[in-house]
């Protein structure tokens, strides 16, 4: 049985049509359309896009910015790359519409350093859009002007976090800021800033052309539309798929012809690792938050090893600002290594579990708040396997 495949982003779009429709509306009308579509951000957190735009629209400031988050740093994720490479004009059109809606004339695309080779493609798309009067001054003959700059990222995963991204744009060390104030109130250079994911922007022209009601028909009530997934791991057909929101894990596994699956990591390293018992859950913000990637592990995989890889990633990527994340990721990894060596007591495992819970609620930014996800989900969902290693002992730790 194939997964429900509904194409939005991978269907044709007449360049400029969405923007043209947008210019027929007032700013608040566009925001209302996006709100009505219930589009949620595709960068991870699933924040309602219409609401974000409304906040930026309502902020009074002489300047505002639209930033496209193309930092795609989550391991195993390459869906934005495809959009950047093959659908750049959709992104830029979405950004221009956002600019019109919130009252901004300047867009910035923050491009992951590793994607610098895509720069010529983007530059060319921007040039063509300018020539077609879809960017620049007097867009489509109106008084609206909007242009886009490309900024290369700093090469750290945390720079994908919106406030760290803004710090990095300002030339500082990429570290998360305190929130509030949120970027919509005070972002790049202190001006109201909308930060949206590449994919989020891409849906916008479609919604303006086809209407909010059309978009709502896809997906679930709380998670409308479709979603791109980079699917990798123990599967026959890895790749980027556009699937309707609400597709279940099992449907995905069938689609990509995975067999003998033990575990599925949903949402990249920051996501959660689900076991067979949860394969019928839908990929949707209200159930399994979908992130951008799905990694499949079959029965030959050692889950402790899987966990170790994830924790190594976080130890490497923690920006080091706040105590729970800086020290906590290190202690969790250390604990995993102890488990590997059979040096971790049940008691200490409990201590680490409590630490992981603390990190989730006490870290300064999403990285530290989500870093314990794989730890907790693997320890909980694969407890049997981990305890059965007979290497987890009751000896006193350390």
């Amino acid at each position, binding site marked *: 049985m194939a997964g429900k495949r509904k194409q939005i982003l991978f269907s044709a779009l007449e360049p400029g049509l969405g923007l043209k429709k947008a210019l027929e509306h007032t700013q608040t009308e566009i925001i209302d359309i996006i709100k009505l579509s219930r589009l949620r951000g595709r960068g991870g957190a699933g924040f309602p896009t219409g609401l974000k735009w409304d906040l930026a629209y309502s902020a009074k400031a002489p300047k505002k910015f639209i930033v496209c988050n193309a930092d795609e740093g989550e391991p195993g994720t390459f869906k934005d790359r495809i959009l950047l490479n093959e659908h750049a004009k959709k992104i830029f059109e979405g950004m221009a519409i956002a600019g019109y809606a919130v009252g901004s004339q300047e867009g910035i695309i923050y491009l992951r350093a590793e994607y610098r080779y895509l720069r010529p493609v983007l530059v060319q798309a921007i040039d063509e859009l300018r020539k077609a009067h879809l960017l620049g001054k007097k867009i489509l003959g109106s008084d609206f002007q909007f242009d886009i700059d490309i900024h290369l990222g700093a090469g*750290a995963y945390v720079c994908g976090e919106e406030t760290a991204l803004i710090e990095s744009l300002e030339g500082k*060390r990429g570290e998360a800021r*305190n929130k*509030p*104030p949120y970027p919509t109130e005070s972002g790049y250079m202190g001006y109201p800033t909308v930060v949206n994911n590449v994919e989020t922007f891409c849906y916008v022209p479609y919604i303006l052309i086809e209407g909010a009601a059309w978009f709502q028909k896809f997906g679930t009530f709380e998670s409308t539309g479709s979603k791109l997934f980079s699917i990798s791991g123990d599967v026959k057909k890895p790749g980027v798929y556009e699937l309707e929101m609400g597709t279940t894990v099992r449907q995905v596994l069938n689609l990509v012809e995975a067999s003998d699956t033990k575990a599925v990591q949903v949402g990249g390293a920051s996501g959660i690792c689900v076991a067979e018992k949860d394969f019928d859950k839908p990929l949707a913000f209200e159930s399994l938050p979908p992130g951008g990637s799905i990694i499949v592990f079959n029965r030959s995989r050692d889950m402790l090893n899987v966990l170790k890889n994830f924790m190594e990633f976080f*130890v*490497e*990527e*923690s*920006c*080091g*600002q*706040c*105590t*729970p994340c*800086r*020290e*906590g*990721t*290190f*202690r969790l990894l250390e604990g995993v290594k102890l488990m590997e060596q059979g040096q971790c007591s049940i008691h*200490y495992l409990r*201590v680490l579990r*409590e*630490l992981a*819970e*603390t990190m*989730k*609620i*006490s*870290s*300064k930014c999403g990285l530290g*708040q989500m870093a314990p996800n794989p730890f907790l989900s693997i320890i909980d969902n694969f407890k049997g396997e981990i305890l059965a290693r007979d290497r987890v002992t009751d000896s006193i*730790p*350390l």
Partner: protein
Amino acid sequence: MPNMLAVCINGKECEVEFGTTILEAARKMNIHIPTLCYHDDLCLSGICRICLVEVDGEKTLQAACSAPITRPLHIRTHTEKVRKARRNILELMLSNHYGECYTCFRNQNCELQKLAKEYGVDSLRFGHVELPRHTKDTSSRSIIRDMDKCILCRRCVRTCHDFQGVGALEAAFRGIDTEIQTFLDHPLGDAVCINCGQCINRCPTGALRERDRSDEVWNAIDDPQKIVVMQTAPAPRASIGEEFGLPPGTSITRKLNTALKMVGFDYVFDTNFAADLTIMEEGTELLTRLKDFIVDKKPVSLPMITSCSPGWVKYCEHYYPDYLPHLSTCKSPQQMFGSLIKTYFAQKIKVDPKNIMVVSLMPCVAKKYESDRPEMSASGFKDVDYALTSRELAQMIKETGIRVTDLEDSDFDSPLGLGSGAGLIFGATGGVMEAAIRTVYEIITGEEVPFENLNVIPVRGMDGIKEAEISFQKTKEDWKFLEGKTLRVAIAHGTANAKKIMDKVASGEAQWHFIEIMACPGGCLGGGGQPIPTNENIRKARAKAIYDEDSHLNIRKSHSNPQIQMLYNEFLDHPNSKKAHKLLHTTYTRRGKI
């Protein structure tokens, strides 16, 4: 009427202004929330996460220090979640901290230690560090860095960067490898550090401290061959009591004299005397520059800028080397004093200067660097042998068992023991300016400054930058060229403010004649060698103590100090004389920015 919001913390209700932080609201309600990376003087950072509280409707705990209140809130500060999180965070910090409290100079004055006790840390579940992992950086003449004790709160980074405008320290690497480093990890002694020590005063732990010279001073005291002379600066006298449990703003000058004698110093003199001397020398220098400029139309460097703050001097050498000619050539009072002890005083008591040790009690760690500058030995001997901070001296006194607070008062020794109120107020920002104005105005007009009780109010207070003007009427014969002219002055404290002033000087935007700059916030009373903690209220209390003392003195103008007059008669001839130039003035070095 500002937008008020109802806040309920632990069941107590209160109304606060929109944007108030949770921490501020809690403090208003007398509810204590622990903090660590937060400091009253610094911008918010929100990184230690010790101040977490539970806010209804939020999934995550909120950092009270940096969470602004923008809607009515219900907050709880010690729920199970909060307690567990705090314990975990403290244990995480301690698991990466190497240090033994009983050998640490912050023992019993350490915020980390205090938190561990207050929040019930009774085990180190994540282990602890058994061996040092860093070598101490002892390259600086003033500051020792012991990064094994650093908990990465970055208060030093923010102090150095935001408060002092220097940026000598920064966070390097990421994640668990994060470290506080100088630029390119140069030893601090080679970095662009101005030795102000403000980072020490704001470090919650023992990771930063001054280079301790008390052992050398003890050795000198123990040596029967040596005459050990102590000079005490005004600012420490208004603060050292804090080390003995007195409230900020309690001046113990005369009890301290008694204690110092008991400790074993042979003579105890008053740096204020040298401050008065500085005013005579610097005031004369200013008037000479003005005359050269107005009458003789010579190219002179105006505005003239004070040079008694060694942190500021080094800042100028690094960042504004082209403006070094604007610095007064006067040595600081500490150095002038030392120079006179090794010459004038040595002759008076007929002792070979090589057997005299000059020790100074200073509010400052940059004074250590200053006293070690090679140019500070014009007499053939080092002007000042050891500069001790308020903290080091307090430690020495504690070691003797002397209870300073119980002692009788005693006076300074003669002949370098008399200082005017003008010398005394050197300890506060604006004080040098006020002292100079009191004297210069009187030299020019023959009359006292036209301010009630000689209190030149416009130059006082804690504003980062102050400006004032004073015009001269009825000038005396020699100073007719200043008739009707207005002297424009400016004052800055904290080198971030100095930078603002210097940029205005550089752009030609501002037309000042005389500028006072102190590297430390509040002036010397907020110096990097002063008792820890510090904040604006503490600094204000110390300033008040100094100004109160000034207002009660008989002699409040430097030129009226009879011992100064005697010194010029017996030894120096007149201000800016050849001899004065040799002993009391100095030169500066151009330095790079790396």
